[in-house]
């Protein structure tokens, strides 16, 4: 089979191998699984934000025909091993751990907290059973705001913590804060708020747990970002040996950080299956998803900024309060990442960072696409506010402050080298593409007609994976493993711990392996989602491009060397003279010598080779991220604000991104666009709203508004691929960047549109009603930089 010089798959928008099944309705999502004898779970949830549970009576539910069992929180505790949340344990959460039970036992901590589970022959019947469960509550004062949670008099959610401080106050300083602020021309004070919003994948959480009493084995079909993390949670909580638990996952309808490990409800479902010896399915409905799956952000920042009259940002001194909701998990880890990332690509001289995390009677805090994103929002918002006050152009202030690309690279104040960061390039390019001077002319004309257009620019960097630190022994994101094998059918099989839920790993990893090994793309199989066969891994943190792309590349290279080594025995040619192209092993320059890799694999499996020949065509590869590198980019939005209705229309959106070498441009751009759409939603529509009593106000899609095709514009994307740092692996992650940088981009544009009214914006959520309020109240409480020495702290924001 002669072949012209093989084209490379890497870098091409190869059509996805996931699509044939998904386009024909043959995908297998967790709710599609139906096992013989399968039962269905539904949860009884607290209607109150904060209350003592006096009694839970499940007798009437148990008596309902079709109901097989009903368990209370106390029942579940007796059926499982008590202990902290597995995820917090894995992530090494510090300090005393709040009490963690699968269902609420002595008290409920948010409206939606599960108090009982009913297991029935159908979901309909299980829900009927829930109606019959009687719970007596003794209502407690709700802790519905971070401010109240900080009050030592607020009733503690967790008795063992004694107060509502989930993460105690801590402060770090980098550089000389006192001198920097003393020497600055101006000092600004702002309070910036980021509101609570949430992941909302189109498929909610869910699982089918199936316990085989004869074998003592629990098989869990999960929708999770990591089958192994889910397995750890199950083994810990159910007190089972690792070899008795198997977690499987198929297609997953999105997650965006929500589905890491196994949730309380999923663990309760597993416990129920074991108790009943039958498969049990739980798939949350949308109300459960919005109310109880978890929420993110809700952070406030008091920011002091030391600035020169020319617009040099010299120092930041920030105090952050994070509302981690009930059952703090991820929320406790966010401040440290925000601290590390706050300087961004800018050359600050000093940074002070103080943070405190509180528990409140709201849904638990979960990871949501770029969990630390507020660092970018705060920085990019503050820069615009300062630029306005100093009469500087937003682009100019950024270019002025962005660290130049030098050798050796500038180092972030918090420690990481800014190796290969192309902030200046992307800012200049996005400004050119958006043609800001032409926009300003159009803006002026529009204003003359009573129309308010605005333009906003923001820039970000993301440690995806981040640079290798000069002294660090290991890579920036730990390591990633993969097993690779050449099968007798000629397929190169990759076993990865990645658990794709839209990221297209089955396509992108195959592209890399096909190129590196030398088989057609169609001849690579990517195996995911089975703890019995895949190595440990997690899809999240934008890690897979570098980490899994890299382990695929190096693993395929090693597998190829092994196959060639074996083939050299078979063909009696030096391995040096052999190559693999288009699925055939052959002697260089002798096309007639070509032997299909499937034939090589069959020979290897024949068992006819002695101990001196390594016929096991399989390798285990580990990759530590190589030299790593940053992802980043600059975005620009043009918006129109209707000042009568408060409606904001995003007219144009341009992104200039640098994620290094693209594996599959269509996939990369899909990730960017999806992230930007969520960022637009976060600003204009989405809010996880609670009233003053902790009642959840956005439990359906009529109240939690998601962006539709009419809210999201076309998103223009250009790529920079500026600086390779590693000899082989320069793919970088793009999963989170869109969601990180779109909110400040949009808010900056809105403020620009409303500048004739003197509007200044210190918050992220700007639905129409809020826009109208901002216009109506503009001019009051505007902050301004106070000239030294008489620097007064004029509070910004509301």
């Amino acid at each position: 089979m002669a072949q012209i010089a093989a084209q490379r798959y890497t870098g091409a928008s190869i059509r996805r191998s996931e699509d044939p099944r998904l386009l024909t309705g043959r995908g297998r999502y967790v709710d599609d699984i139906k096992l013989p004898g399968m039962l269905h779970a539904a949860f009884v949830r607290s209607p109150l934000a904060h209350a003592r549970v006096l009694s839970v009576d499940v007798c009437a539910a148990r008596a309902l025909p079709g109901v097989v069992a009903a368990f209370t929180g106390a029942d579940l505790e007796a059926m499982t091993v008590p202990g902290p949340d597995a995820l917090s344990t894995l992530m090494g959460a510090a300090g005393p751990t709040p009490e963690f039970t699968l269902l609420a036992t002595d008290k409920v901590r948010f409206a939606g907290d599960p108090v009982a589970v009913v297991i029935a022959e159908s979901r309909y019947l299980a829900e009927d059973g829930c109606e019959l469960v009687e719970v007596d509550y003794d209502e407690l004062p709700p802790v519905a705001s971070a401010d109240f949670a900080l009050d030592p008099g607020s009733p503690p959610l967790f008795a063992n913590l004694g107060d509502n401080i989930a993460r105690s106050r801590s402060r770090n300083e980098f550089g000389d804060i006192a001198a920097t602020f003393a020497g600055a021309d101006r000092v600004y004070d702002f309070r910036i708020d980021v509101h609570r919003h949430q992941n909302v994948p189109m498929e909610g959480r869910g699982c089918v747990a199936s316990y085989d009493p004869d074998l003592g084995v629990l098989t869990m079909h999960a929708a999770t970002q990591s089958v192994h993390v889910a397995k750890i949670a199950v083994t810990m909580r159910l007190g089972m040996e690792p070899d008795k638990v198997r977690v499987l996952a198929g297609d997953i309808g999105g997650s965006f950080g929500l589905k890491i490990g196994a949730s309380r409800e999923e663990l309760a479902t597993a416990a129920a299956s074991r108790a009943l010896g039958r498969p049990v399915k739980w798939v949350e409905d949308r109300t459960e998803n919005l109310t109880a799956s978890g929420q993110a952000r809700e952070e406030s920042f008091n920011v002091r900024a030391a600035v020169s009259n020319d617009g040099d940002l010299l120092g930041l001194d920030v105090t952050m309060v994070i509302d981690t909701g009930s059952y703090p998990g991820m929320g406790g880890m966010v401040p440290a990442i925000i601290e590390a990332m706050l300087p961004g690509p800018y050359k600050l001289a000093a940074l002070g960072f103080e943070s405190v995390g509180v528990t409140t009677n709201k849904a638990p805090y979960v990871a949501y696409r770029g969990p630390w994103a507020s660092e970018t929002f705060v920085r990019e918002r503050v820069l615009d506010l300062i630029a306005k006050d100093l009469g500087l152009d937003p682009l100019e202030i950024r270019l002025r402050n962005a660290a130049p690309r030098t050798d050796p690279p500038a180092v972030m104040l918090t420690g990481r080298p800014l190796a290969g960061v192309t902030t200046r390039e992307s800012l200049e390019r996005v400004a050119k593409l958006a043609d800001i001077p032409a926009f300003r002319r159009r803006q002026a004309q529009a204003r003359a007609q009573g129309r308010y257009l605005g333009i906003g620019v923001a820039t970000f960097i993301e440690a995806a994976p981040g640079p290798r630190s000069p002294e660090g022994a290991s890579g920036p994101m730990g390591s990633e493993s993969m097993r690779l094998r050449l099968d007798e059918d000629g397929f190169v099989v990759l076993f990865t711990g990645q658990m794709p839920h839209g990221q297209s790993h089955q396509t992108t990893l195959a592209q890399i392996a096909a190129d590196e090994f030398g088989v057609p793309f169609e001849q690579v199989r990517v195996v995911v989602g089975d703890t019995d066969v895949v190595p440990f891994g997690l899809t999240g943190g934008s890690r897979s491009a570098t980490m899994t792309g890299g382990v695929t590349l190096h693993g395929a290279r090693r597998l190829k060397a092994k196959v060639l080594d074996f083939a050299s025995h078979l063909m009696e040619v030096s391995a040096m003279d052999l190559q693999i192209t288009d699925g055939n092993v052959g002697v260089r320059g002798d096309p007639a010598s070509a032997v299909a890799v499937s034939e090589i694999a069959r020979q290897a499996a024949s068992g006819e080779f002695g101990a001196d020949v390594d016929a096991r065509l399989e390798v285990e590869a580990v990759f530590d991220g190589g030299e790593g590198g940053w992802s980043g980019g600059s975005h620009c939005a043009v918006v129109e604000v209707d000042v009568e209705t408060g409606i904001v229309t995003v007219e144009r959106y341009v992104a200039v991104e640098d994620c290094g070498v693209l594996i599959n441009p269509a996939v990369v751009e899909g990730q960017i666009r999806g992230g930007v759409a969520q960022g637009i939603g976060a600003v204009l529509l989405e809010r996880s709203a609670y009233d003053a009593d902790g009642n959840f106000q956005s439990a359906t899609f009529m109240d939690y508004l998601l962006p539709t095709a009419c809210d999201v514009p076309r998103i223009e994307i250009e790529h920079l691929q500026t600086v390779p740092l590693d000899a082989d692996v320069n793919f970088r992650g793009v999963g989170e960047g869109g969601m990180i940088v779109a909110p400040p981009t949009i808010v900056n544009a809105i403020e620009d549109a409303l500048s004739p009214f003197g509007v200044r914006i210190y918050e992220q959520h700007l639905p129409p009603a809020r826009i109208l309020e901002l216009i109506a109240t503009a001019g009051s409480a505007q902050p301004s930089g106070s000239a030294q020495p008489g620097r007064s702290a004029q509070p910004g924001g509301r």
Partner: protein
Amino acid sequence: MKVTLTVNGTEYARDVEPRLLLIHLLRDELGLTGSHWGCDTSNCGACVVWLDDTPVKSCTVLAVMADGHRVLTVEGLANGASLDPVQQGFAHCHGLQCGFCTPGMMLTARWLLNNNPHPSSYQVREAISGQVCRCTGYENIVKAVLWAAEYEAGG
């Protein structure tokens, strides 16, 4: 209650509870799991199928209301082994990521193109505006539908 309906050309007769929703009849009783359930309030469109010749949100239709009617789901969209141009368009334009919203999107798109073979991108956006995709930012869905329109026009 007895229902008899034709789904993707095959007739099915089932005895169902009066409260059973069409989406659950399709998924749980008939094993056609390509249509998805994404909300409780008829807002997401993951469940869109055709009832006779019109797209409907099958979470809003009782199974018994489909008695005597024809239903088309994603499983019936391809013509044998050859994918419908809308399906091809989604593959060609990377119109899906997780794929959860995709069946509903494609059924609406198929209906749009039957009624308006040359839609503008705005008309495509309007047609799918009652449906939510959380992954793609919609742009590639719009491209996919326009690709199918062009393909069918012989382009």
